[in-house]
């Protein structure tokens, strides 16, 4: 199984006519499928939440039904410690990370690509500067840097996501630089130069668009997983989204007070939501990486 060589699209010298899904391994396809299901679920839930198409008001308190188990009296996923519907709060909780997460991704992809092109295409000083910058950002544990920013400014999710976005730059830059360094000496780039194409179109069209767009999709996916992890962690720590606005992180935290009484559910439901969502984004990213970029990457 493992020894069979599978040619992957995007690889130089791949002239196979097969579409990518026929060349991909089963495990990778299953991963991507699972990830796509999760992504669609998140998108649909986000839309439902922002259009207020919810079974219950996420803020509606019901003192008759505190910490109700799943399935009781119309509450599909039960209620939390104030009797609020968990399903509605889970759906609205997506808003806590959705737009901020996209901002973080946009930041890391834009600057990561720019730095990657600089480092990969130019040599010498630019390359060294970029790798210094990468090492610099790698020297900070993300959470500690975020806590520093929180202490300096305020516990705001957008501040947090700007830090997440900036600390997400190095992996993207390193990968893009590696890819471009690998492609730079290939015949088609040489041909493009010989044809007198401007650098701008070689970089934007022939290097980035034709050869790096898959990488960017992969890093966007992985970045969303990272953003969700950070948002929920910080909301759990009490720095992100604050009660009563629901976030999966502060829902776990609020439910944890009832954990030792044996009432796991109000904490476990958001924890499982975090688990499956992050798992989905990771599997999607890694699956796409294996399928589109080859196992070892470039």
């Amino acid at each position, binding site marked *: 199984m493992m020894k069979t060589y599978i040619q992957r699209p995007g690889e130089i010298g791949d002239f196979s006519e097969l579409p990518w899904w026929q060349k991909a391994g089963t495990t990778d396809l299953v991963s991507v499928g699972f990830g796509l299901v999760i992504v669609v679920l998140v998108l649909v839930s986000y839309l439902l939440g922002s259009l207020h198409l919810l079974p219950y008001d996420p803020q509606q308190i019901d003192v008759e039904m505190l910490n109700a188990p799943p399935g009781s009296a119309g509450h599909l996923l039960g209620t939390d410690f104030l009797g609020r519907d968990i399903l509605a709060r889970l759906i609205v909780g997506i808003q806590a990370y959705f737009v901020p997460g996209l901002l973080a991704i946009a930041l890391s992809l834009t600057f990561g690509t720019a730095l990657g092109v600089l480092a990969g295409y130019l040599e010498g000083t630019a390359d060294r500067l970029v790798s210094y910058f990468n090492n*610099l950002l790698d*020297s900070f544990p993300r959470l500690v840097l975020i806590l520093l920013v929180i202490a300096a400014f305020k516990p705001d999710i957008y501040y947090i996501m700007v830090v997440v976005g900036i600390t997400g730059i190095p992996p993207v830059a390193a990968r893009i630089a590696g890819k471009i360094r690998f492609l730079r000496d290939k015949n088609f780039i040489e041909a493009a130069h010989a044809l007198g194409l401007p650098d701008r179109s070689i970089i934007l069209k022939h290097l980035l668009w034709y050869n790096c767009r898959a990488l960017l999709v992969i890093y966007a996916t992985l970045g969303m997983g990272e953003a969700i992890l950070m948002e929920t962690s910080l909301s759990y720590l009490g720095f992100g989204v604050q009660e009563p606005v629901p976030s999966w992180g502060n829902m*776990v935290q609020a439910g944890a007070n009832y954990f030792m009484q044996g009432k796991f559910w109000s904490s476990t439901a958001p924890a499982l939501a975090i688990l499956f969502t992050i798992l989905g984004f990771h599997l999607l990213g890694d699956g796409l990486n294996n399928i589109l970029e080859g196992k070892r990457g470039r």
Partner: protein
Amino acid sequence: MKAAAIKPIALMLSRELLQSALLLLGVSVVVFVILYLAPGNPFSAPLEGQTAGQATLAGGPEVLSVPQAWYDLYLAWLGKMLHGDFGTSIRTGLPVLATIGRIGLNTLILTLGSMVITLLVAVPIALHAAARGDTNLNRSLTLLAYVVSALPVFWFGYIVIYVFIHQFGLFPLISGSATGQKHVWLYFLVPIVVLGIGNGSLSEVIRTLREEMSRVLAEDYIRTARAKGASVWKHAFKEGLLIPVSEIIAAKIPYILGGAVIVEQVFNWPGLGRMAWQAAQDRDFPVIMGIALAAAVFVRLGSLLQRMVFTAVNPRASKE
């Protein structure tokens, strides 16, 4: 170690030390800039002899009206730090450096211990997968590792507390206070294991180690070793295991430190993570600044150690 191996290490060490110093300088600039831009920052108003800015404003209130350039403030601040003066905590009034030194030990135990746990779990799975290929056993183990990596560590901590401590009474709840009993060290294991498994990097560690080992096992020199009946394990160990392990661990230190912040919160572990959390709540600038710098030093030390291992194993690397 053979004498021949020492020289490349010394060469590399001096170069890496220089690089680390440059990076730490950059780290200090980043920390300074963040704090300098902050509203009510420690450099704009002196707080009862608490802050680095105070030293530069020693002339008293009349000097306050003279706006100082940021680089003067930075240099003064850096100078104080180089003399070991990180200021005192606004909350407790204790000197920051001494506190970090004392409390940092707990975090060091937690993070180093959890790295060992991560490796104890990851290495057998990775080696098995590399040696045997895709079997059902290691496919399910890999999937399990993925699930575990996505597990929110705070919730995982509660589950462990509930099952092992509340339900079975195996460990006392507050690990730090359990003194004077036998096997006290056992209680420290719970948070360490939780962080080791739940720090979110398990699947990545397994994947990296497995890819590296399979790559090395496919090399010509391993085939030669196998052909002449020598130990494949002995030949593959350095390149296939030692180097990747040191690399991935060094790369994962920031993540493990980040996970430590949360695990310390869940388990009431008296470490730097809890201190950072508290400092962020209190806007205790000297403390959070000191912790950020200490964390950066820890990360750089890890990467230095990794380079040393790499050069020791592969002396050619120092000539690059």
